[in-house]
């Protein structure tokens, strides 16, 4: 169970996240929707401990989040992999939090972690490419390695910050499919921020809509009406969805 209470984060005069509270039961797949600058990334970074909140608290299974921890994994928009290393070695870095310095330097990871790295690569459909250098992979494949790295952490909470924003529509759909599949297989609580409403509706279970740092919607697929999307994004996005629906 993830509990966020009265969370706020400001950068100078800018209130990025404003008094946000919600809970996520184990295994729920939550999509955070909102325009650029709505506070989605800041919220995720606070949950991961990469950014310190100005006010409020976050707890995972009754343990407070005070900094980066190995049971909260993050998939970044730009994948942030080590391009010189193979997919397998990149995935293995997910186990650094529970491996001591000497063992990680000499490559003496636990055999279970090595197996987990390969299992995670299989989950994202890259087992055959495990030995391939990440720098030679396509954007979609790189993002899938990023997901594998997050899974190797064996997290209680999986965060994905705009994981498909820099991918073409077909790759975006495939990558989100892998995220959802991995979350379902492992019963993972997941919080993904997404820009594309159509992809969000396809893969999300519960939706949190943010605007100007505040939560303005929290509900399930049936509640996510065109009017709600209109409120989150303004009319342009909604018009696109309407015309898509009509077509």
């Amino acid at each position, binding site marked *: 169970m993830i509990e966020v209470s009265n969370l706020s984060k400001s950068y100078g005069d800018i209130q990025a996240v404003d008094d946000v509270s919600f809970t996520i039961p184990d295994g729920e797949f939550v999509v955070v929707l909102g325009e650029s600058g709505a506070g989605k990334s800041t919220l995720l970074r606070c949950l991961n401990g*990469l950014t310190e909140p100005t006010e409020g608290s976050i707890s995972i299974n009754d343990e407070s989040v005070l900094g*980066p921890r190995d049971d909260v*994994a993050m998939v970044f928009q730009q994948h942030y992999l080590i391009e010189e290393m193979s997919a397998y070695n990149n995935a293995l*870095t*997910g186990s650094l939090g529970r491996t001591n*310095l000497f063992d990680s330097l000499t490559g003496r990871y636990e055999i279970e972690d090595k197996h987990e790295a390969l299992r995670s690569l299989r989950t994202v459909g890259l087992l055959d490419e495990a030995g391939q250098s990440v720098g030679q992979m396509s954007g979609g494949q790189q993002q899938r390695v990023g997901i594998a790295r997050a899974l190797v952490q064996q997290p209680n909470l999986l965060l994905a910050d705009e994981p498909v924003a820099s991918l073409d529509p077909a790759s975006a759909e495939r990558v989100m499919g892998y995220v959802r599949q991995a979350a379902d297989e492992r019963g993972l609580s997941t919080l993904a921020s997404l820009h594309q409403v159509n992809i969000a509706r396809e893969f999300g279970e519960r939706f949190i809509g943010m605007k100007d740092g505040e939560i303005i919607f929290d509900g399930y697929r049936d509640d996510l009406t065109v009017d709600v999307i209109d409120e989150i994004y303004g009319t342009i996005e909604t018009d696109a969805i309407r015309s898509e629906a009509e077509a």
Partner: protein
Amino acid sequence: MSTETESGTSEVQTDDEIDDAFRFIRINKRARQVFSLFALVVFGWLFTLALDQVGFSVAEILEYWPDFEDALGQFFPPGELFGLPFVDVGAYWSFIQERNLIMQVETNGAGFMFWDWTVIPGQMFITLSMGFAGLVLGLPGALILGVLGSERVTPYPFNFIFRGTMSVIRAIPALVWALIYIPLGGVTPFTATLAIGTDTMGNLGRLFTDALEEVEDGPIEAIGSTGANGPQRVIFGMLSQVASPFIAWTMYILEINTRIAVTMGLIGGGGLGYVLQTQRSLFKYTNMMATILVIFVLVISVEIVSQRVRSYIRGTEESQGIIALIVEFPQRMVRSLWQ
């Protein structure tokens, strides 16, 4: 009528504007010409001063030209190759053999079986060993200073302790380091190697620091988000991003070290440089040229190997052709003298 007047006035105004612009351009051009002339005069004056300082004299060149011609005849002793006039290659080869500049193979009088052969490494290998051993000795220091000198690892201004150390090392040329190490055992291949090792710490460390300043923040943050500790963030987030440039720079320093090892010999540090220096003092120009040819072969070989490795690592790097490597050899040799 009024329209005509208006258009007439506007035409006159336009011409004025063009005249003004043209005048402005002309003034600018004249100013540039005057400045160029002034710069040329200053440049010429500085050049004359410099020539005066070094006692440059065309008369001296003319006076000693016949001696130089004699020396050239000895540098390139005339001989024959396949009945055609050519340099006497045999004279070079006999000196190379006599002083064992490359290597000697002894067969122990037991036929052609290769296990009976004894290889005696020549002077070339002393020079190569100085460069290579100096590189390996200096590498750990370069890594430590280079990594700690980066602002990404050690916060400003503490990183300047390490950057400063590297700057001090670099400010003193390798040849001078060899002189500093004289009390440790005179000028020998051993102290020359120590000097090259010290020089490597300063130069390679600096290249490492520069490479580290350009790493991306994202992967470091991503490694941090897995719960990795500080040293793991540095090693996996930062150093793993620059593994390829580090290897490439190390190979580049091996090239430079080999050239420095030759110049170390000139002050008595052994190897090919020392042979060159001895033959120069005996005015044996043919032997000098034979030694220079071996230096050429050694340095070019190291460069070719280094370039191949670097081009393999970088993958996309455009590799330098062998002809360009050979043609640009003299300037690289001169450059290493100054470093």
